[in-house]
């Protein structure tokens, strides 16, 4: 039933694309605004060949993983600190909640000034955007460790550091991985967004360049490519997290 509905949905989407193709040919939709789907599809191989899509992809991926990795490390450490000292947690956790909702990417001109027009800007913005959610996730993860485990550790004579290494961290590991997933999500979105905005580097910049060249099919194709890449990325992330959780 579900598979059938999913298939039906796919067919409907394909049908809409076909409808669009026809409408453009019939002149109902201006072909200088929306290129024919077939032209967009044709532009894709051209992009791959001429625009170094692969190397751009690697640049974007590299920036994303750098930002995500950094924010996971720093965020988990900060989360551990907040958990360890409840006074700090009470004082600053609400602040992180506010930061998590703050549109930091809006300040990109500021970061441009601070770090110049370089990969560093992209990574820093993505890092800063991903950090608050990771911190919140880490704190929640540590706080959710069943108290009985900590009691067991303490009754075996574990000190604070050993308790962290042998009880807290392993028990909170699923939450840490969720934090990593969040970091990757925020990371990718911000990396692609900033690349587009400052026209630098990877896949986001590709869209920008093509639109400035008035290469319409190319622009649409590049957008489609980025959407495809990010969709795949998130499906993999989701699947990965579910697989990890199943393994306990």
């Amino acid at each position, binding site marked *: *039933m579900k598979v059938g509905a999913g298939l039906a949905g796919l067919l409907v989407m394909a049908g809409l694309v076909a409808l669009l193709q026809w409408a453009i040919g019939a002149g109902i939709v201006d072909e200088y605004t929306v290129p024919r789907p077939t032209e967009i599809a044709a532009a894709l191989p051209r992009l791959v060949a001429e625009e170094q899509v692969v190397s751009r992809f690697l640049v974007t991926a590299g920036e994303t993983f750098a930002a995500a990795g950094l924010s996971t490390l720093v965020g988990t450490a900060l989360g551990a600190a907040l958990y360890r000292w409840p006074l700090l947690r*009470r004082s600053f956790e609400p602040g992180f909640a506010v930061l*998590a909702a703050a549109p930091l990417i809006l300040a990109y001109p500021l970061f441009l000034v601070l770090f110049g027009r370089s990969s560093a800007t992209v990574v820093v913005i993505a890092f800063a955007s991903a950090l*608050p959610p990771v911190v919140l996730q880490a704190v929640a993860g540590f706080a959710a460790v069943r108290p009985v485990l900590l009691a067991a550790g303490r009754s075996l004579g574990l000190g604070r550091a050993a308790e962290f290494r042998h009880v807290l961290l392993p028990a909170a590991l699923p939450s840490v991985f969720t934090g990593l997933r969040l970091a990757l999500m925020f990371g990718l979105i911000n990396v692609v967004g900033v690349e587009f905005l400052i026209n630098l580097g990877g896949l986001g910049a590709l869209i920008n360049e093509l639109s400035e060249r008035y290469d319409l099919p190319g622009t649409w194709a590049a957008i489609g490519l980025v959407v495809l890449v990010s969709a795949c990325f998130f499906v993999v992330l989701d699947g990965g997290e579910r697989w990890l959780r199943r393994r306990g």
Partner: protein
Amino acid sequence: MAAAAGLSVAHGRRPGPAGPVGTAGPRLLAAVVLLGGWQALASSGLLFRDVVPPLQALAAGLWAVARDGGFWADARVTGGELLGAVLVGGVAGGATGLLLGSSPLLSAAFERWITWFGPTPKIILFPVLILLCGVGPGSKVAMGAVSCFFPMVLSTAAAVRGVDPVLLRVARSFRARRHQTLMKVYLPATVAPLLNGVRLGFGLALIGVLLAETKLSNQGVGFAVMQAYARFDMPRMYGLLILVVGFAAAVNIVLGHGARRAAGATGQEH
């Protein structure tokens, strides 16, 4: 949906007791350290002077922006675009979410497309939106609306699906007509999660509108930020950004309170 995930982490899990007990001390200390460090950096001459302006320059810049009639004109433009974006995106998203949430068939067919497309940064669609809606405010409204649409759909669909099925059975057993079930059961049951969806959608719409203005515009707050950048008027840029972030935070807090109070009033507090 990253924003959704982030916000759900921020607001779905309640933080530990945020009581005033002793929090004033650490916060004050943190503020002093940060501001002190900033001032030290500004006066040290390590960075080019205006990149990190001294605090008094920041304050002056903020004050200048607030008193500038031009800023308020820009703010009105952005505000109008934002309102349009939230209305269009919110209504479209809410209606679509209602459809998807109430029909398992439609949901199985189409919801995955929205989930997949959701996390992509919508700003990359901007060139296309310019083609479709022109270079004026229309494309900014469109940008904001598209950004707002996705979280609204998903949170509305989830809210509709989250209505306790026994309550719907009660309405059916009393032979309530469709519009009665909608108004007397669905609406009160979904007010709280819907408000949260609006909060999320508003935040993303604001980002969309402002980023679009920074990219291509000749008015609005985003444009003002780019102007300040071009003239290297850093205190002014900082002032604008502080006002924007402050505004976003304020609306977020208000809507968040509203959502929590709605949850309490409809007896769905957990």
